[in-house]
């Protein structure tokens, strides 16, 4: 639509927006232009994507379209003076509102309810998530509300209902909130598939997405609306500009010459406490859930009198605890909340006037989003103060500011046809009334994620669910799906039950609920953490010191412990890599430092450390690749510093280790971080020979990358998630008895068995592809190698471990590549002796 046509359309529609204008005016507001644009577009049947900063009216832009539609439809209907809207007489399901976090559902319902109440619209409005009580679910099973706020998983569960076609008969719109959070994840693909289903069941329903501003909005729109939408009937609507944001740092009083590692960063507690005291109400963001626990304890230890007004918030805490914290923030009764990304989204906490970020911001967009949690008052400026947990992070803060000023925004790359999610969705559709394969294929290909799905991949997916996928053997006892006429359905009720349980577990590892012996649930931790505990062991969770008693009924039973000392649970998958945009800015800052230029407080602070780096080795320019060679008690170390982000480095480390190991039998253990990677070996690595033979060459990648991948366990690890989503392993179901135990196998075991006996299994192929495309960000890896190929290689032999190398040296999280016989390696090794506990 042209700008002129759009404005004429706006003019024409203005008079019909009387209701909304009046409602806005009653709150002292006026609709923004972008909101009017959305309402007009909605009325003319369009779908689209709205992008704007948090707290700028996106929700009302999406919500009033359907409301106006209702008001128009019922203009001539005499309102029934009903005091209370009844479930039985309220209109059937019209609006689906998808939210990525169940924590957001309650707030969304509250925000959506206000206009319904004020305009006496007789709709029912409810949420349905994993947290919804059983009684409410039962009522919803009989009749859904007019507007339903739900999560991607709960939407998929709706699709398993046999009467799903009737349920969606009157559906007018689907709104997907925080679409940028879902995009690029398997849950996002799950939503794409569910929306394709919705388009089939309710072709007239419009789809609107709400998103933060990201670098690839067109792709985000296409993923939301599917490949089949016409550009004419969809649009991207830009909301209001974000507020002004100030990014600064709390500079440590003493700059250590060595970047200290990991969670030792609590040296900054006094400065953090002082910053919190400056404001009325503060959010302290950390990058991981464990950090949240650690900083909560540290702040409380520094200010014991704050007990009761300081809280912590992360995704593994029990919902009631999270609700309490959020309410406290809204009411302004909490002085300080330590949180993870669980507080990044949605909810508006007006009283918050101070935001701190512990550790690396990792990306420009993410830091801006977090900054936006403060300064919600009109005209206020958002400010975020970064707290380094190691000295090098100060450079990242300076780099983020550069990126912000340059207007750089990261893209979120969507996923390409993950077959595990497809397999899960196909079973979902089979439960929801069954499917005819050709029709479902067309529907699936209508999504952006599966537009390129090949016939072979589709056939394999169906075969995987009906006969196991191998043409050679027939297995009469196996069939997740069975044929019923021209349709595929699920017949075994046990398979149906397990599938429904598995839908909810697309994210995360196997979790186990943590419960007090006599009473309430505290939240959940990873099973692997609990598995390492013995009865009597102490650990800290939800800010509380606990003593582990035992595991029973898939729950970890605990009691309160007196001492605070104890292990802190770690949750996997929370380490985010540095974004490509930020990495580039970081290289720029180091380049300046190599010329002796130190701009801004952060760079001045790291001056001594970088000068030590220069003295012992070198500060790399953007046109250089620095390689450091050292020897320690552990063996030989090679450090490479491409500054490209951890994921790219993991791929590079595997590739270079593989190429080095081709020259002589040698075993490398590797660690990677956002700045570079380390290769450690017991014997001297043939670096000079390898450099001459093209160690850093971008040639032969097609062969070398898969080979190096096979040499590591990366694909095997990636398979954990795939096995879960494809329904091979179960995170354990409640009250599952002995019969479930005989179905226990690890994803690693499946991986090995498939690799050996079913190598054409496409889930294995997918694991490799995911490592290449997602984990290694293949395109970025390729670009990096091109860049390195043109770079000047600087090899130094520092007298000691340098400041840049130090964090890699202490990292124990390692991959391995070997060209030696396993037996030869074993002869060098020792068995670890666990403290004998008098039992096995």
């Amino acid at each position: 639509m042209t700008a002129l046509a759009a404005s004429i359309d706006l003019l024409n529609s203005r008079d019909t927006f009387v209701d909304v204008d009046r409602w806005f005016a009653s709150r002292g507001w006026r609709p923004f232009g972008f909101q009017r644009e959305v309402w007009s577009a909605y009325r003319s049947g369009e779908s689209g994507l709205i992008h704007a900063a948090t707290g700028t009216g996106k929700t009302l832009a999406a919500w009033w379209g359907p409301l106006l539609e209702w008001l128009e439809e019922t203009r001539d209907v005499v309102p029934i003076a009903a005091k209370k809207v009844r479930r039985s007489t309220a209109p059937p399901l019209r609006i689906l509102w998808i939210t990525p976090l169940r924590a957001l559902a309650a707030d969304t319902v509250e925000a959506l309810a206000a206009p319904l109440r004020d305009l006496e619209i007789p709709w029912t409005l409810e949420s349905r998530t994993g947290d919804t009580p059983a009684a409410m679910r039962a009522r919803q099973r009989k009749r859904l509300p007019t507007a339903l706020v739900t999560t991607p998983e709960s939407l998929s569960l709706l699709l398993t209902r046999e009467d799903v076609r009737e349920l969606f008969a009157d559906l007018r719109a689907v709104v997907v909130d925080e679409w940028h959070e879902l995009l690029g994840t398997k849950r996002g693909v799950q939503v794409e598939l569910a929306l394709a289903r919705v388009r089939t069941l309710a072709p007239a329903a419009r789809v609107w997405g709400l998103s933060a501003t990201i670098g690839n909005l067109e792709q985000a729109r296409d993923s939301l609306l599917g490949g089949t939408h016409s550009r004419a009937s969809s649009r991207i609507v830009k909301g209001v500009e974000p507020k002004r944001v100030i990014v600064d740092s709390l500079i440590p009083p003493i700059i250590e010459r060595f970047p200290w590692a990991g969670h030792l960063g609590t040296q900054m507690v006094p400065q953090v406490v002082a910053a919190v005291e400056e404001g009325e109400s503060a959010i302290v963001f950390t990058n991981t859930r464990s950090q949240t626990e650690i900083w909560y304890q540290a702040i409380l230890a520094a200010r014991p009198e704050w007990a009761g007004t300081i809280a912590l918030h992360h995704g593994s805490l029990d919902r009631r605890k999270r609700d309490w914290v959020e309410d406290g923030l809204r009411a302004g009764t909490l002085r300080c909340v330590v949180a993870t990304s669980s507080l990044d989204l949605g909810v508006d906490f007006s009283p918050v006037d101070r935001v701190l970020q512990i550790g690396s911001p990792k990306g420009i967009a993410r830091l801006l989003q977090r900054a936006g949690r403060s300064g919600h008052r009109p005209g206020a400026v958002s400010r975020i103060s970064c707290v380094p947990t190691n000295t090098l992070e100060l450079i990242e803060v300076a780099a983020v500011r550069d990126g912000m000023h340059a207007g750089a925004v990261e893209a979120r790359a969507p996923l390409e046809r993950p077959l595990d999610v497809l397999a899960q969705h196909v079973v979902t559709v089979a439960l929801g009334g069954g499917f005819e394969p050709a029709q479902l294929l067309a529907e699936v290909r209508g999504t952006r994620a599966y537009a390129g799905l090949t016939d072979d991949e589709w056939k394999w997916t169906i075969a995987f669910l009906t006969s196991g996928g191998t043409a050679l053997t027939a297995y009469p006892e196996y069939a997740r799906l069975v044929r019923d006429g021209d349709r595929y359905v699920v017949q075994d009720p046990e398979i149906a039950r397990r599938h429904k349980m598995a839908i909810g577990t697309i994210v995360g590892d196997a979790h186990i609920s943590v419960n007090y012996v006599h009473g309430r649930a505290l939240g959940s931790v990873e099973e692997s953490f609990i598995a390492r505990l013995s009865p009597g062991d102490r650990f800290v969770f939800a800010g509380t010191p606990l003593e582990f008693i035992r595991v029973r009924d898939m729950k970890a039973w605990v009691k309160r412990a007196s001492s605070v000392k104890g292990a802190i649970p770690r949750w996997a998958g929370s380490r985010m890599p540095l974004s490509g945009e930020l990495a580039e800015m970081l290289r720029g800052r180091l380049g300046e430092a190599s010329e002796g230029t130190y701009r801004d407080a952060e760079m001045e602070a790291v001056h001594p450390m970088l000068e030590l780096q220069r003295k012992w080795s070198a500060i790399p320019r953007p046109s250089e690749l620095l390689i450091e060679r050292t020897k320690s008690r552990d063996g030989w170390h090679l450090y490479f510093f491409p500054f490209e982000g951890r994921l790219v480095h993991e791929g590079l480390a595997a590739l270079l280790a593989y190429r080095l190991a081709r020259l002589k039998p040698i075993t490398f253990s590797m660690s990677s971080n956002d700045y570079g990677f380390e290769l450690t070996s017991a014997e001297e690595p043939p670096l000079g020979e390898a450099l001459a033979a093209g160690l850093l060459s971008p040639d032969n990648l097609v062969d070398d990358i898969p080979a190096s991948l096979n040499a590591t366990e990366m694909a095997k690890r990636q398979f954990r998630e795939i096995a879960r989503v494809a329904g091979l392993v179960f995170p354990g179901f409640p009250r599952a008895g002995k019969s479930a135990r005989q179905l226990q196998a690890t994803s690693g075991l499946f991986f090995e068995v498939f690799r050996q006996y079913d190598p054409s299994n496409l889930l294995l192929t997918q694991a490799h592809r995911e490592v290449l495309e997602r984990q290694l960000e293949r395109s970025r890896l390729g670009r990096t190698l091109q860049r390195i190929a043109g770079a000047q290689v600087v090899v130094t032999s520092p007298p000691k471990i340098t400041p840049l190398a130090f964090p890699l040296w202490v990292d124990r999280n390692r991959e391995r590549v070997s060209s030696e016989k396993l037996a030869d390696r074993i002869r060098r090794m020792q068995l670890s002796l666990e403290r004998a506990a008098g039992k096995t």
Partner: protein
Amino acid sequence: MTGAVEMDAAGEELELLPDHAVFWRRGSTLMVADPHFGKAATFRAAGIFVPEETTAMTLTRLDELLIATGAERIIFLGDFLHAREGRAPSTLDAIEEWRAAHPWIAMTLVRGNHDVRAGDPPDSLRIECVDGPLIDGPFALAHHPSIVKGAYVLAGHVHPGARLYGAGRERVRVPCFWFGRDYAILPAFGEFTGLADIKANPGDRVWVTTGEEVIAIASVSVPQRSPN
């Protein structure tokens, strides 16, 4: 046998075979723990696909061991069948065929926890089934590791694996034979079985197997625990 190791337990010489079994030459007995036949079929019956070739491979490996050792008897140390649901015709037929190829070999199953639920192997397989421990010479053959007065216990159940550490921050995890003071635990024989890390005591003897070679672990030490 290539890659095997001879060792002494309870005054008897045992051969630890790379393919997850123990041969007691004086008793002409092959000892095999935890084959878990029908585990793949159990999963398939529940709608989880696992290829059947695991059964064929497990049986082929048993063939090779019988030929290589010339054993006249096999003792299964429990968990012969994985589950009742795993008694699929395809699985049982394959075992029948294998049994028919070795008509003269005596076979005994010391029942394990899985056998109790899965039921004994069909009579046609001619596998004598007993509850453990079964006393034979100085040994007590059992599924669960336990202490038997006056005998050294050979058991399964645990699916033992060893984590090894070395210079250059090396680390591997491999199946192992674990000989303690009162009992020894054999690695699991079945193809579709996992590993459980052992917690060895001072004085225990541990051999790991790469599948091709059995290697004694000379030193047992307390590794530095990582900070997490």
